[in-house]
């Protein structure tokens, strides 16, 4: 019976762990590039250094952690199993890691050949992931709104990656003309299509489950994904043809979606049954406030034609919304799967009769203490505020922002690596206690 398979436990620990621990490493690299190049790099949006930092964050941090988290969450949320998970995750992770690194280096050191290397590696990794996971999702019997939204998110990732490859070839191949006009599309499909849709899809399930809240309203769940997707399609059309009315209409629809989603989430969280404000909840709240600010900045640009700092929307979307959400989720995923794998290991040893005594498996707060995640949250939030200030007054705030951002990423890397180290120690300890 097929459905039996989906009741099996999560994939081996190394599958999500390699992705999640790699993410803050790229966050740290991005922060070091900021420190290295100084405030001149933010003079406009498309300096090579800014493009390098952006891709270290969107590919190295976000795609890395989102792909890893999907491999962990999909068996549970979607009742589907990824075949040969360890092999599959290596095939995805290694080229994603090296590809993200090459792409950033290509810009930083202006090495054209590296664009081609990055294109091949990232193209392979992302397409393999999209094909395998879409196939599994299409075959899943689950009919929750999350499924269709995940499929839309994967389609958006496919569009983003295709546009990215095309743009990258423009940098890497002399005879190939750089299609700069596609940059806006690449960015919209990546950040609004892939990142926003996936986070909404996951929020629909994990917020009510783990914060014990009401469900998102049914109509919200039914329409949000399609509305965002349709608005993006319309916006894309305005890149090809001049359709001013469609452009205003589609931007308004997208801004409305951002506001509706963030306010609904904040409201649901406010009315949650768990009074305990755990760190992940704070991350969710910060992410939603960032999304709301993004909607306001975007409205000011679209309707009142106010000049906003060029990097402000990117900071709010990438750091404020997406990285914040992912960072918060990591504090649930990593300690829980460590506990889960240790308890299963513990039980197996007992069942095999290799050990008689009951050994207590440490609970989540012993794996990553609440104080450690809370302090890292404070560093993360400070870095967001400083980055926002730096987008307006780079000379004053650029270096403090970069330093605190580096510290927040280092802190996250430390918390996650320490948890992985703890897992390996405990695993050895459990096995040795006969």
């Amino acid at each position, binding site marked *: 019976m097929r459905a*039996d398979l989906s009741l099996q436990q999560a994939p081996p620990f190394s599958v999500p762990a390699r992705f999640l621990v790699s993410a803050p490493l790229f966050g740290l690299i991005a922060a070091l590039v900021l420190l290295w190049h100084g405030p001149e790099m933010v003079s406009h949006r498309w300096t090579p250094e800014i493009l390098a930092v952006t891709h270290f964050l969107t590919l190295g941090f976000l795609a890395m952690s989102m792909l890893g988290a999907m491999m962990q969450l999909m068996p549970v949320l979607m009742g589907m199993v990824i075949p040969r998970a360890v092999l599959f995750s290596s095939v995805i992770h290694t080229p994603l890691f090296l590809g993200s690194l090459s792409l950033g280096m290509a810009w930083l050191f202006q090495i054209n050949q590296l664009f081609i290397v990055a294109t091949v590696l990232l193209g392979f990794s992302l397409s393999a992931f999209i094909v395998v996971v879409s196939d599994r999702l299409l075959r899943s019997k689950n009919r929750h709104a999350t499924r269709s939204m995940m499929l839309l998110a994967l389609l958006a990732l496919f569009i983003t990656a295709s546009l990215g490859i095309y743009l990258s070839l423009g940098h890497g191949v002399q005879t190939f003309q750089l299609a700069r006009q596609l940059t806006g599309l690449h960015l919209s499909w990546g950040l609004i299509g892939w990142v926003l849709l996936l986070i909404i899809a996951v929020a629909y399930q994990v917020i009510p489950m783990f914060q014990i809240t009401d469900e998102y309203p049914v109509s919200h769940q039914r329409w949000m994904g399609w509305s965002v997707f349709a608005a993006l399609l319309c916006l894309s059309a305005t890149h090809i043809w001049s359709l001013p009315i469609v452009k205003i209409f589609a931007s308004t629809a997208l801004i409305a979606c951002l506001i509706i989603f963030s306010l609904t989430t904040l409201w649901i969280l406010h009315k949650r049954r768990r009074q305990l404000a755990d760190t992940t909840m704070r991350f969710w709240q910060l992410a939603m406030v960032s999304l709301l600010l993004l909607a306001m900045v975007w409205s000011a640009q679209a309707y009142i034609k106010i000049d906003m700092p060029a990097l402000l929307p990117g900071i709010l979307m990438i750091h404020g919304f997406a990285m914040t959400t992912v960072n918060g989720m990591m504090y649930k995923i990593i300690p829980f799967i460590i506990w889960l794998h240790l*308890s299963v290991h513990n039980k197996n040893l007992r069942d095999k009769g290799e050990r008689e005594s009951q050994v207590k498996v440490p609970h989540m707060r012993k794996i990553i203490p609440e104080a450690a995640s809370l302090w890292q949250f404070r560093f993360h939030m400070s870095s967001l505020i400083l980055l926002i200030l730096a987008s307006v007054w780079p000379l004053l705030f650029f270096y403090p922002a970069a330093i605190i951002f580096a510290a927040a990423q280092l802190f996250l890397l430390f918390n996650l690596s320490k948890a992985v180290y703890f897992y390996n120690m405990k695993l050895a300890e459990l096995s040795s206690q006969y």
Partner: protein
Amino acid sequence: MNIKQFMAQDHRDCDLLFAKAENAAANDDWTAASHAFTEFVHAMERHLGVEEQELFPAFEEETGILTGPTEMMRMEHEQMRTLFAEMKEAMEQQNSDDYLGAAETLLIMMQQHNMKEEQILYNMMDQRLPDEVNDWQKKFKGWNKK
């Protein structure tokens, strides 16, 4: 009401009791926490008990599958019971960090378990078993009297 509707609603009811106990423990109100915790564990044991003693055996008999989803669910029930014991111990020692840590672990364990049941197992049961197999709803309601 079929198995899925009934048991999914009971999952939600247990969640509320869980939150009540956790809220009290987070406020260091150990008397209220202890009451709420006892209520929560009682509701959970009734839920798990009806599954283990009535629904799972009926499903296993009907389908002949003994080592499939029900075996997995029983194993997860045991993992949850280990966490109940840990929470109880922390509560007796009035150690809020240990209580909240074990409770958070249980919450995630319980939610992903419920999800598997609601999305897969209960659907399979509703397809294969009559609604009132073994008079299970009556036994569920009479569980307090045991």
